[in-house]
């Protein structure tokens, strides 16, 4: 393990995989570098897919820039199918085998498919994860469907709803929970965004689920809700979460399941017996790692910023030699979303928050910074159209500042601690 690596294989040719490759070259790695991707595309960027690409403002070609001197071999359109950590080889779909000294697993996630497979197969039923999805859905939206039905109360559902309204399409957004976006933003902020969505013309239905879909031939024609209401639609987007791409690791002995691939603090993949899988690392959406900002609670963060930062941690650690020279992954999760004319930013994780305070601005103005606390400590902060002070809150979260974290500040009225 301490020998300098000569062959590095990256499984997953997306943001994390490419970021790791760049960092490895920057750090002077001169050996062979292979990136394996199941899609036929070179690494591309996903955030624009639900916004500019669907809107038709740019093509679905969001290929990420690559350094001209990257010297990486891309094996695209062939998924990895098997890992043998003892032999240190990865097997691809075409039967070829790649030996490695270091392996990065960055296989990410895929869209959770609509559970009823016959309904999922209907023309007019979409999911959105990759650029081919965005191209297909974008083409459908440009063809002016009668009504778009979106299922799911998360950011993808809301961003697509916002894009549909920009295109002046009638939209019904079905959310199973009582408040949208609550998992990430808490009920108060989630409620605010839901309110804005309604004002922008979204038919937002809470505590609602689909009972069944109706087809005309092989095309979607309508959906019936659990309460019996029938909505005619020829375009439905299921934005109901993601599944981690870990199935190919079955039989490898790695500790991987629906929650992700288990790693240690240095992002080294662990075997089921808790020991380190020699030379194997993980980064991005698929990696489940101990978060130092949350007492090492295991977390898999599906955000753009973490994918990049974690890939860089991994690249450094791959070249570090042994654990004593490695650094732990201490990225503070952060995230942004643009929808309905709002820019929403979040730092930290709000899970388990028991306190909430508006720090600057107000819910009424819809321009604000809020902080989230748990057990008297600051764990997260979010802003809507007002990100200027977030760096200070980021520092407060890193330092586990008492809640509420920042007082006597500019642009601040009396702080009132409330339930989230």
């Amino acid at each position, binding site marked *: 393990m301490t020998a300098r690596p000569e062959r590095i294989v990256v499984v997953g040719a997306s943001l994390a995989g490419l970021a790791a490759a760049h960092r490895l070259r920057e750090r002077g790695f001169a050996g062979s570098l292979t990136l394996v991707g199941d899609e036929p595309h070179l690494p591309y960027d996903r955030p624009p897919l639900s916004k500019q690409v669907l809107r038709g403002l740019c093509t679905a070609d969001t290929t990420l820039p690559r350094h001209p001197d990257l010297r990486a071999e891309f094996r695209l359109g062939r998924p990895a199918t098997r890992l043998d950590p003892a032999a240190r080889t990865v097997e691809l779909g075409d039967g070829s085998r790649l030996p490695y000294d270091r392996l990065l697993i960055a296989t990410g996630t895929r869209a959770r498919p609509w559970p009823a497979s016959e309904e999922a197969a209907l023309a007019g039923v979409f999911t959105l994860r990759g650029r081919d999805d965005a191209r297909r859905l974008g083409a459908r939206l440009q063809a002016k469907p009668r009504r778009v039905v979106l299922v799911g109360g998360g950011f993808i559902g809301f961003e697509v709803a916002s894009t549909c309204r920009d295109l002046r399409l009638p939209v019904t957004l079905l959310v199973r929970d009582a408040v949208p976006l609550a998992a990430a933003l808490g009920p108060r902020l989630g409620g605010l965004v839901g309110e804005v969505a309604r004002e922008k013309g979204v038919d937002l239905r809470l505590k609602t689920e689909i009972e069944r879909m109706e087809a005309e031939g092989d095309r979607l024609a309508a959906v019936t809700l659990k309460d019996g209401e029938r909505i005619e639609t020829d375009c439905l987007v299921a934005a109901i979460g993601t599944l981690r791409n870990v199935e190919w690791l079955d039989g490898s002995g790695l500790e991987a399941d629906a929650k992700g691939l288990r790693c240690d603090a240095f992002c080294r993949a662990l075997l089921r017996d808790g020991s380190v899988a020699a030379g194997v690392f993980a980064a991005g959406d698929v990696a489940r790692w101990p978060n130092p900002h949350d007492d090492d609670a295991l977390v898999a963060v599906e955000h753009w910023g973490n994918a990049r930062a974690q890939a860089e941690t991994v690249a450094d650690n791959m070249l570090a030699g042994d654990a004593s020279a490695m650094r732990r992954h201490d990225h503070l999760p952060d995230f942004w979303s643009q929808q309905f004319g709002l820019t929403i930013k979040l730092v930290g994780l709000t899970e388990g928050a028991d306190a909430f305070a508006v720090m600057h601005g107000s819910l009424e103005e819809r321009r604000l910074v809020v902080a989230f606390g748990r057990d008297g400590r600051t764990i997260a902060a979010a802003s809507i159209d007002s990100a200027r002070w977030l760096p*200070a809150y980021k520092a407060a979260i890193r330092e586990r500042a008492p809640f509420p974290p920042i007082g006597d500040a500019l642009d601040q009225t009396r702080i009132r601690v409330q339930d989230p």
Partner: protein
Amino acid sequence: MSGSTLFERILDPANRANPYPLYAEMRKTPVARQEDGTYVVSTHAELARLISDPRISSDDLPDPRKFRWTGHPVTDLLVRPVRAEIRKRHRPFIFRDPPDHDRLRAQVMRCFTPERVRGMRDKTQRITDDLIGKMRGKGRIDLVDDFSYPLPVTVICELLGVPPEDEPRFHGWATQLATALEPNQRDDAETQARNEVCFNEIADYIRDLIKDKRKAPQEDILSDLATDRDGMNDYDLIATAVLLLVAGHETTVNLITNGMLTLLRFPGHLERLRAEPETAPRLIEELLRYEPPVHYRTRLALADIPVAGTTIPKDAPVILLLAAGSRDPLRFPDPDRFDPDRPDNRHLGFGGGLHYCVGAPLARIEAEVALVSLVRRLKGPSLVKDPPPYRPGASLRGPRHLPLALEGVADE
């Protein structure tokens, strides 16, 4: 060496030519308390953090209502208190906080449109060509007086709409008012008295100019601001105009002069810029890191702020030593090397946060046009004196003169 003595040494004009070893010393204590209770912040991470901290106020000027008595009752009891009150309430927006700051800055940004700024490129080139043309036949020039000063001054006057014939009056005013950025000067009673007189003079001048603009609006920023129905009141308008004029006189001058000085010290980079003028943008970013025109800005702590193991107490003056942060080895590998090819060059040359330099796009254009033209047209330029004599300011730092020997001037 105690922290206090160290910052005093930074302020000492004797160290103006090369403050960087002192900055390196300073960075050993990222947040250093001085004997007078001021806190100096000198490392990149801490600067980047404090520059976006809502507990840091920019409203830190000394109170103009505290002045020395002249003995004339009308002056002391009526005129000066009223004027002082106005000055206090209507400070330029670099010395103000949200929400007022945001409103005033937004109004200026509406006038400083990208089209208008880009439109100044041709004009900047014409002024540059003209100034370089005047160097013909001279074996020796002073780059500051002959070029670096008149160029940005002509540009800012043109943009704002100050008639060129009035420009010479601003030279003294701008230099005097820039002392507001130097903490060791601005608290001095003598300086304050001079600033008061100076501000009243420039305010009277601008008040008249605003009247003219309202009568006959022209294609300039002052006309736009003066005729904006939802715009600022006259006091804020005057303060804003003064701010833009002073900023236009006191900063880009140093960027251009420092730029030429650096290129002459590293002739390889001068040759490269001559051969590949398209590399100018990166070179200018590196200049803003390596020899920036603004070295520090002052602030005030509104609450106790824990940072880097120290707590800056409420009401403490804070000095953000931006130029030291731009040379922080933890952020920039080999920071004392001038390297325009440096990746990820997020220098603090234009500050950051909500007070990030409004004139940054204009300064970049001016520096680019100026440096590319100078290296292309000056034949065999060399430094007569290195280091050159410096202006007294430690915040707005730059050579007072930059005497150059020339072998000639090439055609345009």
